[in-house]
């Protein structure tokens, strides 16, 4: 060979965390800790009543104040983290799982199935997501489990569409043709190239979806259709504080703050992942 060896670029640099990303990472660690070991973060009992210290504003003893029965809001918010996160994760998992099944059916099984699935998805899309969840709860009754499934169901059509589009674009891509030219079998192409490239972006999509699912689940609880009082659940706590909003704002403010923080944390992390995976 008379070819000059070609210069190679140095291995890629690690991208530095931005301030919002670092903050989100810290918050995520805190939320996970609160979910896994709530007693470690807030040692008290979230359901312990103390009528003598009802409606106290924030103080050293009660950083987030107390509610109408004297329960410590901080303890309750921390203990509610697990429920909210589990609802968020489970709902997203249900939505994604269903979306993958529908999207893969539509993308792989030919025009007839594609047509059928598309029409079903369009009908589901015609209803606002929350309305779809409400209909489901109307049929199966309120509760944490049904509201989780309801949120999952209502997010599924969106995921199904994205997965179908992704699958079709990957299936037509040049590297799939290149694999065909190499003589790979159809199942090999599907498992080695099409599915990994379709599903990798879903990881990011799921992370972004968790925030939304938490907000929706809290919404259902707030409407009295999810977790029921006195369970330490953010949406239910928000709803309970509504009556006293003029005199004891902290009762609804802190659960609301946690809902916003978890949703924002999940979204910021999702976007950070997206950026890194796309440009890695």
């Amino acid at each position, binding site marked *: *060979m*008379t*070819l*000059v*060896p*070609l210069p*190679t*670029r140095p*291995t*890629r640099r690690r991208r530095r965390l931005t301030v919002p990303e670092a903050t989100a990472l810290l918050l995520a660690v805190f939320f996970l800790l609160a979910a896994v070991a709530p007693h470690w973060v807030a040692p008290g009992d979230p359901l312990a009543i103390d009528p003598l210290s009802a409606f106290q504003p924030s103080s050293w003893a009660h950083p987030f104040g107390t509610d109408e029965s004297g329960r410590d809001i901080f303890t309750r918010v921390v203990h509610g983290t697990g429920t909210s996160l589990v609802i968020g994760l489970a709902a997203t998992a249900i939505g994604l799982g269903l979306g993958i099944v529908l999207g893969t059916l539509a993308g792989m099984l030919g025009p007839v199935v594609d047509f059928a699935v598309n029409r079903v998805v369009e009908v589901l899309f015609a209803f606002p997501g929350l309305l779809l969840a409400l209909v489901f709860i109307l049929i199966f009754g309120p509760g944490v489990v049904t509201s989780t499934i309801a949120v999952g169901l209502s997010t599924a059509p969106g995921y199904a569409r994205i997965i179908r589009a992704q699958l079709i674009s990957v299936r037509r*891509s*040049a*590297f799939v*043709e*290149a*694999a*065909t*030219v*190499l*003589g*790979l*079998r*159809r199942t*090999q192409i599907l498992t*080695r*190239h099409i599915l*990994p*490239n379709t599903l*990798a972006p879903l990881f990011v999509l799921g992370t972004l979806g968790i925030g939304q699912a938490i907000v929706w689940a809290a919404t259902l609880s707030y409407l009295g259709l999810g977790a029921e009082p006195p369970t330490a659940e953010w949406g239910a706590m928000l709803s309970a504080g509504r009556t006293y909003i003029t005199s004891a704002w902290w009762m609804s403010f802190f659960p609301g703050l946690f809902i916003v923080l978890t949703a924002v944390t999940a979204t910021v992390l999702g976007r950070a992942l997206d950026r890194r995976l796309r440009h890695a």
Partner: protein
Amino acid sequence: MSALPLVVRNLRVAFDGTPIDPVRGVSLQVAAGECLAIVGESGSGKSVTARSLLGLAGSGARVSADTLSLAGESVLDFSDAQWRARRGKTVGLVLQDALVSLDPLRPIGREIADSLRLHTTLGAAARARRVIELLDAVGLPDPHLRVHQRSGELSGGERQRALIAAAIALDPPLLIADEPTTALDVTVQAQILDLFETITRAGTALVLISHDLAVVARVADRVAVMSGGVIVETGTVTEVLQQPQHADTRRMVAAVPADKPRGTRLSLTLRDPATLHDPAAPPASNDAADLPADPDAGAPVVLTATGLVKSFRRPDGSRQVAVNDVSFDLRRGSTLGIVGESGSGKTTTARLLLALTRADRGEVRILGQAWSEQTERARRPLRASVGAIFQDALGSFDPRLNVAEILRAAVAGPNGSHRHAHTERVRELLNDVGLSVTVTQQRPRELSGGQRQRVGIARALASRPEILICDEPVSSLDVSVQAQVLDLLDDLQRRHRLSLVFISHDLGVVQHVSDTVAVMQYGRVVEIGAAEQIFGAPAQPYTRRLLASVPRLL
């Protein structure tokens, strides 16, 4: 005009955060009616130089110079507002890709009238008249119909003409054209270059930026060769092309494939200085050199295409015939070049040969066995004998895999899985295509264009094929990288006795690599024959027109 349209002394451009300044002391001047070509490979600083002349070097750029004047006026410390007043008026710009340079939602007439509206006091009716005059001047047929069309309704050449019309609307004394014909077919390219000649003859100064010396040879009066941010050589076109002084210029001149016989090396390396002076010298260190270059006519046929027809459904339901009755044979060890302009059916033909799409009629046979008529399952054992090299190398790799994974999968094929046994073969393949093992852990998008195409070639060779189908394998590469890849393919063909179908829109490349050439137009093979015959004595008028359009080095 008293002052020169453009005078540049010691221009420097620096960007924040880049260790090496892209432009380091460039001096140029252009007289009225003169065409100066700035030629260089990608990364040589030619585009940054061009953009600095319009105040468009970018927000992070620091431009400094001893002199930078347009039509006698120093523009070095111009504000954005001052630049806006001069752009279009004292200096016009023509960009490479007219499709993205024109607003897809506005008729081209409005687009061209913009500068007239901003810089002149002409009324609406006078502007409309002027726009039609301009479109007529740039040779767009039926200008009063064309003014109402949007860029998407025009062909590539028509769009480029519209863009030139917009650039010369205010009759600027200086026109800057950045790779204006790179995206165009040869015949259209020839027309656009003629148009530039007409414009300079009318007294406009032109700065033409290109990576292709042959293109420049047609229109330029003087050439400035850029490399590494400095001008390494300037002179008249004849001087630079016939007696290139600088090593970089010599390399670029040698890299132009047209008129260089088969087997001549295009890429010069400093290790064998013999070839620097004698472009026809045989490869200096090549163990395969003693193998016969020309395959004998009696070599067995390895691929036959008979009466291939393929049509597609248009959006309106009618059918468009992409490939119409195409037949040819490919003999062992030879190269069949397929040449044609965009839309001539070349790529569809490649896909039919690779059995990636089913022909409406006709048949492809590989090594005497049925191929296109088979089911994919029956075809699979034969797939190892046919490799493919794609134009878009990057798109042909799974983005999740690194080079080692790509090649190991190709070596393993549909059956194998013994990972360790493949490592040696991967190393051998990388060595074959002149890549060092350090690339194995990198992903294709981290490699240069030339390296990517080498990985593509290595993958195609993994199954030890007898036939390679190459669809525009060098079209997205710089001329000098193209030269290296063409040399590599030539080496590999001799060493492994490969039979190649080589598809390209570039006649110069096809002439250099082919034994047999098929010329395609509107889905048909209009002429097929030995390369010397097609290029020496073309029988068909279309072939003659194509040949007349090929840019050549004098």
